[in-house]
């Protein structure tokens, strides 16, 4: 019954989305207000319909309807409620449905809020969002439907079908397979939704950009209309990437946070172009420049979002993240090509009218430095794209499979990230229009001098190689410059308004939320930079096989293996938990308990590290292998990751900064008063 409603409503949602698309285009062509109103209503109605479908699937997941293929494959009786809900996006079918739900929700929000203010842009926004939604709903209804059930045919074969086949009875499995053990983590609740919100959020600014292109609009209305959408999408994409990194750090058990896995990169690429777009958008708002670049960047970002979704579902990539190979790969490929070519065609058609009066006064002006900034983001994106596509290209051309792993990405993008950090520091101090190297130098020499303290300390204490010291300086530079500029402004504000520094800080920030929100975001990024430098350049690691009572030493720590407990946990897994006593500089500081969980049903092993975190460094211990508790002992891999905690603190600052920038201004809207000749 529930599933029948789910399937039926899904089909209705698809039909109404097609209607919304058709009536939006027809309404614009015929300039019919009634048709456009109908298009808007259709687009609005889709959201509650898809919400019903999602609710139906969630009910099936919570009530153990194992006769449904999706339920059987993704949950089992032992799974807690929060993981059952997370199973909604744990599989191909559910995650596509989730995508549809988010897109319909964001379209709903965009049309409900902005209908009166951006009336002329809305029809094509409806058309573009509906076009995208029709594609995804089509995939869900016809290819990846989550409401397939198991039936047993007359010959005893197991069949999957939406509707009851003739001479078949419904199967009634008593338990399911459960989620992939790697996904049984709190990260599963937050990482995919955050990423999907980020991905889908970029559809709205893309739709507005296409709408502006179609109408030949050269003003910045569409940019202003979607500023907060873009920031919102970028924020969630950033959160999603960070949560994924933390999850990898907690569960995958290789002492790292980012493996340059192709699926990780496919989520990182839209973040790169999206970040370039956010910066460039600012330039168009302030100076009316970079119009073509902005449109290019938002088209790229949207296409990369779809491309990333395609890569994970087409079977072209092998990854811990990738869904199993699916028939929808070709459909995605066609959709991406169509969208990219149409968008590009539109952009080229409007190329001439999008020219701006950008005049470079100086290579050190803010406009020029922003351009270099965007060059770096785009270069890093192109390098990542090369790394992802090259193995596929190589196999197609030569039949030989190759891997492009972390050494490529780290050496190719590392210097570029360093330059980005440098620009992050100096651009906020550059001036609009004319600016010389002398004037810029005058602004930054004091904080630049202060920033030398960090690498100097590292050098004197012998803490790192030359590259690490350079990286430390490049990271501390934007911190020092940002804090210096911020404190200068606070000092001036304190004097002018005769108030305390704290009040001045608050008033300054709230008077220019975009600017100071950006400063706080940059600080967050720099803090993350410290964490990355620590783990990439300063990490120590060792591996040792220890008998009970034996110790291994690393970076001032001494770990003594005490014992190993192997137990059946009663929820479908066997847990092997080692206990190691930890001393640091000959002082006992605690214990770590690295684990290996073996899941009976899937015959899979998950490694959970033993972790001891401080603001200075993490001690990270993995149980690599063990033998039955004899004199042989157990093998441990031990990492000391300096500064890595800042990789997790930085995002909190980044989120704060973005929220400051997103916070609505207290300024009331202006109203137009029309006076008649009588003065009324």
């Amino acid at each position, binding site marked *: 019954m529930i599933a029948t409603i789910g399937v039926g409503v899904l089909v209705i949602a698809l039909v109404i989305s097609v209607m919304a698309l058709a009536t939006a285009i027809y309404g614009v062509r015929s300039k019919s207000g009634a048709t456009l109103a109908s298009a808007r209503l259709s687009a609005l109605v889709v959201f509650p319909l898809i919400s019903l479908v999602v609710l139906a699937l969630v009910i099936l997941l919570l009530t153990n309807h194992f006769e449904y293929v999706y339920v059987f494959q993704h949950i089992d009786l032992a799974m807690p409620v929060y993981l059952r809900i997370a199973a909604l996006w744990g599989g191909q079918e559910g995650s596509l449905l989730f995508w549809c739900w988010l897109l319909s929700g964001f379209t709903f929000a965009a049309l409900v809020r902005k209908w009166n203010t951006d009336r002329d842009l809305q029809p094509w926004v409806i058309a573009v969002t509906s076009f995208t939604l029709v594609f995804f709903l089509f995939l869900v209804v016809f290819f990846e439907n989550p409401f397939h059930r198991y039936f047993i045919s007359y010959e005893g074969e197991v069949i999957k079908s939406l509707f009851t086949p003739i001479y078949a009875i419904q199967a009634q499995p008593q338990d399911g397979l459960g989620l992939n053990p790697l996904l049984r983590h709190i990260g599963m609740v937050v990482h995919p939704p955050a990423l999907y919100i980020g991905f889908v959020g970029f559809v709205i600014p893309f739709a507005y950009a296409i709408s502006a292109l179609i109408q030949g609009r050269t003003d910045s209305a569409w940019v202003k209309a979607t500023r907060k959408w873009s920031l919102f999408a970028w924020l969630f994409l950033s959160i999603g990437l960070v949560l994924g990194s933390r999850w990898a750090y907690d569960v995958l058990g290789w002492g790292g946070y980012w493996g340059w896995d192709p699926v990780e990169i496919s989520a990182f690429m839209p973040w790169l172009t999206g970040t370039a777009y956010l910066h460039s958008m600012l330039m168009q708002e302030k100076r009316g420049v970079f119009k073509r670049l902005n449109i290019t960047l938002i088209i790229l970002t949207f296409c990369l979002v779809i491309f990333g979704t395609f890569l994970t579902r087409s079977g072209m990539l092998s990854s811990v993240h990738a869904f199993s190979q699916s028939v929808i790969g070709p459909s995605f490929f066609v959709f991406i090509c169509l969208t990219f070519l149409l968008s590009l065609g539109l952009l080229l058609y409007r190329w001439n009218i999008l020219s701006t009066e950008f*005049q470079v*006064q100086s290579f050190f002006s803010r406009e020029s430095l922003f351009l270099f900034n965007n060059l770096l983001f785009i270069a890093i994106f192109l390098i990542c794209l090369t790394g992802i596509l090259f193995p596929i290209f190589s196999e197609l051309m030569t039949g030989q499979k*190759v891997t492009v792993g972390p050494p490529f990405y780290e050496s190719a993008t590392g210097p570029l990230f360093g330059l980005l950090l440098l620009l992050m520091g100096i651009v906020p101090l550059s001036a609009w229009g004319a600016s010389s190297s002398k004037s810029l130098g005058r602004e930054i020499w004091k904080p630049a001098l202060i920033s030398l303290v960090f690498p100097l300390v590292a050098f004197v204490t012998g803490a790192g190689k030359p590259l690490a010291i350079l990286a430390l300086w490049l990271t501390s530079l934007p911190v020092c410059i940002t804090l210096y500029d911020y404190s200068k402004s606070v000092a001036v504000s304190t004097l002018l308004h005769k108030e305390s520094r704290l009040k001045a800080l608050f008033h300054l920030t709230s008077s220019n939320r975009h600017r100071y929100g950006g400063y706080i975001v940059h600080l967050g990024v720099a803090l993350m930079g410290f964490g990355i430098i620590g783990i990439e350049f300063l990490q120590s690691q060792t591996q040792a096989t220890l008998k009970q009572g034996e110790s291994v030493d690393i970076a001032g720590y001494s770990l003594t293996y005490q014992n190993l407990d192997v137990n059946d946990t009663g929820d479908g897994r066997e847990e092997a938990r080692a206990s190691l006593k930890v001393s640091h500089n000959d002082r006992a500081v605690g214990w770590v308990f690295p684990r290996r969980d073996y899941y009976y049903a899937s015959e899979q092993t998950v490694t959970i590290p033993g972790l001891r975190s401080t603001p200075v460094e993490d001690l990270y211990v993995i149980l690599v292998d063990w033998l039955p508790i004899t004199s042989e002992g157990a093998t441990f891999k031990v990492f000391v990751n300096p500064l890595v905690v800042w990789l997790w603190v930085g995002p909190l600052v980044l989120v704060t900064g973005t929220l400051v920038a997103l916070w609505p201004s207290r300024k009331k809207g202006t109203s137009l008063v029309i006076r008649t000749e009588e003065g009324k």
Partner: protein
Amino acid sequence: MTWRMRVFIFLLVGVAMLSVPEPAIAMEGTPVSDDQVNEVARDMYCPVCENVPLDVCPTAACAQWRKLIHEKLSAGWTEGQIKEFFAEQYGWNVLALPPRTGLNWLIYVLPPSIVIGGVILVTFLLRTGRKASILFSEGFPMPENSTELRDKIKEDLDKR
């Protein structure tokens, strides 16, 4: 081109050259520790569960591979020889970076080309914009009613 621009482009080309990935460094055969095995295994990939580095892969097959690396290192093989051996046995996809042969050169050449190409493009765009700005400031005729224009500009500035 000013000297500052030359220095800037030189530095950027230098950064671009840093982008070229470095080849693996060979290790000498010595009494072998787990750390030495992992040093080699870190730059290799599991052929079964692709995109998982060999030093952290938990499967039995990967454990056997690491054991084989241990044996080869004990026998005095260098890191380069070991990687060549595995590549010949299982294909290039077991290496973190493809060997510098044939089409694989693209992966080493493209990143610096992208950076250099981008620098040239941006420099060209900025110089073109700068020329337009110089033309504008040098030869553009002032409007007849310049006082009115000046007052209008002043009014706009006062409003900010």
